[in-house]
């Protein structure tokens, strides 16, 4: 057991820290917040992403042949950790979330096309899984893709498709065999968002951002948009979803409201006065311990992935503990800071009003990417071998 980072890792950490200090301005951070609230991705953000891409820090642990640089995944973890620590709201993980699936199931042509563009941020995917009739019960999806001549024709609807309005492609799960068992008739398509017949409609959310509905109306796609075997999409999707849940960025998101709370209680004059209460100290110390568990679960998943082990249940544990910790943190913080915690904007709003945003944001984490109930069932069945019936 080794809970430390090597000298190489620490050198890389210093390099990233210096880069972020030199290249991340308040203006670019504001631009990213605006983009999350529905604005177009701004020029400063694009420039920053390009600089990060030029250094090879997007998808850095991938094979060099596909645009990565064969770096240790611990360096990727370190990079994500530093990005979060510098409070840069840039989710580079989203850029490359689908990459493991493409590496695993893609044709050589697909790998050569998508992977280098993903690391440069030129191709970005929205995730086309959830439908109005089901997200958690994903395999019940109804969107149809029918073979037609040299390609497929797609009809149906997706929902909660975040970033659909600014993605170049959608990673689409659709039913290709309605007569097969429900997990066996599903395929995955890598569909350009500018394909005729696709309509995106915004759904505005509580934290102040947007997600979308995406409609497919006789969308005609070429055969080479199919990823992996026809009707074999469930098995690609399942493993990609699993790997997508590991990574420092997730734990950093789970613990960042705690770090903001701690900083406020330590640094702010009113915060210090509130923190002089022993009951407050006890609750915050408890959250600290729980935050370490979130971090350690991420380190464990990473250790397993690095050894080439596909974690049977550990990533699901991470995905229960982290989001529920995030919710506990924001609820506890709300009862520590009281009326200050509700202030969304204004002179006396702590941290420019970020606390109530974190409060409503935390809610999303316990159902986004699979609800915590589904995770618990997965742990019980896959991890502990409890029977189905």
């Amino acid at each position, binding site marked *: *057991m080794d*809970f430390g980072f090597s000298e190489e890792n620490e050198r890389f950490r210093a390099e990233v820290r210096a880069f972020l200090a030199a290249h991340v301005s308040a203006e670019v951070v504001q631009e990213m917040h605006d983009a999350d609230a529905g604005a177009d991705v701004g020029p400063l953000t694009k420039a920053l992403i390009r600089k990060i891409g030029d250094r090879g820090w997007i998808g850095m642990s991938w094979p060099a042949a596909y645009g990565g640089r064969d770096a240790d995944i611990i360096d990727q973890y370190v990079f994500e950790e530093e990005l979060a620590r510098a409070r840069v709201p840039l989710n580079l993980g989203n850029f490359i979330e689908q990459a493991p699936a493409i590496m695993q199931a893609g044709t050589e042509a697909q790998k050569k096309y998508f992977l280098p563009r993903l690391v440069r941020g030129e191709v970005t995917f929205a995730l086309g899984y959830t439908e109005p009739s089901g997200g958690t019960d994903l395999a019940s999806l109804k969107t149809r893709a029918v073979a037609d001549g040299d390609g497929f024709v797609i009809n149906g609807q997706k929902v909660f498709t975040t970033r659909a309005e600014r993605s170049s492609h959608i990673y689409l799960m659709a039913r290709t065999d309605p007569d097969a068992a429900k997990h066996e008739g599903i395929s995955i398509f890598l569909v350009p968002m500018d394909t005729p017949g696709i309509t995106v409609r915004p759904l505005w959310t509580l934290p102040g951002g947007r997600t979308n509905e995406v409609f497919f109306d006789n969308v005609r796609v070429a055969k080479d948009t199919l990823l992996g075997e026809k009707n074999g999409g469930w098995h690609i999707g399942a493993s990609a979803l699993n790997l997508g849940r590991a990574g420092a960025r997730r734990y950093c998101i789970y613990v960042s409201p705690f770090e903001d709370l701690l900083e406020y209680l330590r640094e702010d004059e009113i915060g210090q006065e509130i923190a002089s209460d022993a009951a407050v100290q*006890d609750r915050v*110390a408890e959250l600290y311990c729980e935050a370490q*568990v979130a971090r350690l*679960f991420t380190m464990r998943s990473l250790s397993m992935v690095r*050894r080439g082990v596909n974690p049977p249940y550990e990533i699901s544990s991470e995905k229960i*503990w982290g989001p529920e910790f995030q919710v506990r943190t924001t609820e506890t913080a709300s009862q520590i800071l009281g009326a200050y915690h509700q202030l969304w904007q204004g002179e006396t709003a702590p941290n420019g009003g970020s606390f109530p945003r974190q409060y409503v944001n935390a809610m999303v984490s316990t159902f986004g990417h699979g609800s915590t109930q589904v995770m618990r069932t997965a742990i*019980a069945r896959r991890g502990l071998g409890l029977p189905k019936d």
Partner: protein
Amino acid sequence: MDVLLNDEEEMIRDSVRQFFDAECDMLRVRGIEDGEQRSDPELWRQLAELGWLGLALPAVYGGSEAPFTQLCLLFEEAGRALAPIPLHPHSVACLTLAEAVDRGDCGALAETLLSDACLGDCLLTWAWSERLPNIGPEAVGLLAVADGNGWRLHGQKRFVEAFELADYCLVAARTEATGTSDEGITLLLVDPRSDGVSSTAQLSLAGDYHSEVRFENVYVAGDAVVGRVDEGWALARPMLERAVVLNCALIVGATRRAAERAFDYAKERVAFGHPIGSFQAIQHTCADMITWVDGAELLTREAAWHIAQGLDAALPAAAAKAFTNERCQAVLREANQIHGGYAQVKEYDQQLWYRRAAAWSMRLGTSLEHRRTVARAIGLV
């Protein structure tokens, strides 16, 4: 960074587990619990012969000089097996003696005891808390008054493990009337059979004895000092951190086994025509149980790693203990709930893990006390 066990660590864990599986079944555990001494001398001798009593001690005493992380694994396995031996107090005392000798400022007695302690021929224990069950310096009030080259002890200790069985007890005393401060504390080796020492063994929830010890004008020779006079906190602080982490390892080991027994039971026990483990209410409980015990294990191992690396372990040790106490109690509670009525029955084995792990979670500082340490360390106080 790789938080999983490496090959050597896996080998140690596996061989310790095989040993306990073969030698320490629940009949044996129950036999010791029903006996007089509440400790198994034969198991102790076997452990000594296999070299595990000296696992993390210096080679000069016959030890293996293994890092503290490996000792932590030995304790996880001892907890899992409910090994009825005073491994915890003995190891805590031995490591502190070895550290004091290594620092080069220690009376002669400590060094002479270590080789025998390594071989299992000399049993050591330690005593810290008194009226308050705390593990800070404020808990120490036992007075040591200078008498020639030696000292005279006046006062008491509580919650001392294996005191009546021990050859020596490492005692924390105040050589200056410094109240609750961390100054003026001195560690001394006391023979429990010295004149003026009396003790009362008290039965714990775990089924072992915790003694209340009284010292009435007890003479301790000058060579029995461990570390420097008045500067005992410098040794005591790492001693308490090691004690806390090894205690967590025992709790985690026993709790994991209790949880595994509940998972197994949930697969077999049928209600309403189905194994209860197929019900979501049970499945989700089990998912939480494994998540919580894994969290406690990772925190414990990270704290052990800090100690092994010679890093400051105050914060990780306190975080591990604060979390482990409460979360492992919750895991044990749910394991009992899955077993239903059988959990309360003496002849059914589940209670053996439950009682011990629960009692261990009540020793060496409450979650509240450890969270006070955490709060200080993260700058809240």
